């Protein structure tokens, strides 16, 4: 039984490790092996933590709709328009030109 659990754990981590390089090309500073680390390591790496109380006031500058915080990719996501605003050093970047388009296939980032 434990072997099953172990094997599933291994395949999941391998799968997520394989997922990240296929993900969109990035301007982000987070290294690709981020999601594979343990929870505590991930917190230590984005050391300045994003302040969740900001979510009360922050909205998407384009549509003025509330955003969803995605802890894994460290972004604020607007589902409706399909864009993600990056967070660097705990400071969210709400400039529309620097947001990333979330597309089903591998996405192109609109750099400026």
């Amino acid at each position, binding site marked *: 039984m434990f072997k099953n659990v172990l094997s599933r754990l291994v395949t999941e981590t391998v799968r997520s490790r394989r997922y990240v390089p296929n993900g969109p090309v990035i301007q982000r500073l987070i290294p690709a092996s981020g999601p594979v680390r343990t929870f505590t390591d991930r917190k230590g790496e984005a050391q*300045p933590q994003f*302040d969740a*109380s*900001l979510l009360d*006031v*922050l*909205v*998407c*500058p*384009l*549509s*003025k709709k*509330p955003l969803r915080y995605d802890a894994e990719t460290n972004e604020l996501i607007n589902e409706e*328009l399909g*864009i993600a605003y990056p967070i*660097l*050093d*705990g*400071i*969210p*970047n*709400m*400039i*529309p*030109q620097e*947001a990333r*388009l979330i597309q089903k296939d591998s996405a*192109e980032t*609109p*750099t*400026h």
Partner: protein
Amino acid sequence: MAASMRLLVRRAIRLSHKNITLTAAGAAARSDCCRGPLVCRCFSDEAEDRSTHFGFETVPETEKAKRVYKVFENVAQKYDIMNDAMSLGIHRMWKDTLLHVMHPQPGAQLLDMAGGTGDISFRFLDYIRSQEERQKRRVARSSQTPSWRDISNNYSTQDEPRESRAVVCDINKEMLKVGKQKADSLGVSAGLSWVVGDAEELPFDDDQFDIYTIAFGIRNVTHIDQALQEALRVLKPGGRFMCLEFSKVNNPILSRIYDAYSFQMIPVIGEVIAGDWKSYQYLVESIRKFPNQEEFKGMIEDAGFYCVKYYNLTGGVVALHSGFKL
């Protein structure tokens, strides 16, 4: 007839502006020519590129934001030192005056636009803290002989008064980084948040803030009227708009001394301390291009603010404009 059609089209485009795809917006911002979906502003210009001033130069509008960004990116590290050197420390007095006129009460929500290194927000939080201490002392003194009402209030479960909060917003990441480092070294973190955002397109919902300040930032904005409209939008009804900005000196003697100092001393100081002549040349030129006190007051009133007044500081070198959203 053509003009009114153009107006209607422009309005329709502005309404659908929000739904325009990002790639198009990104492409238009990247190219120097603003013939793209962002064309709602160009339509009024009869197929000519809109141009604006960058200091004494004339540049296309899309250029200005980029160049201003570069200026502040270069000066971010030495920004505070340069402020002290250029204004001989007087800028501290200006900012303190802003806080005194603002007179914020505990529970106030501040949006510090173009807050950069966070000077206004730090002062805001200090002011609120000293206000709270003063209130506590007053309560302690008066509760020496409590009335029946006071005693019953003490028994009732008190709601936590709204915590005051300062959000520092700036278009430039470098300035915010410097500000955040300053906050960390001062140990200030409660009630302070940092956001990268554009003054012309604020990432905040309507009716959020009690006070909106923009200190020495509005002359760098490409479309000042849009920034003013956004300020009106995010303020609560009853909220206050406050703007510190360099302005026109009326006294002729002072004006001559000020001009000589600006154009001859400041870029030199900039070169010596920050190693950047051009950025400080831009600074003094942009001050001269900014509208004077009365004109700016008119712009604020046009945006929809009421009870707009201005206070001249240091003989008009700096003007503090204030308006209310009613």
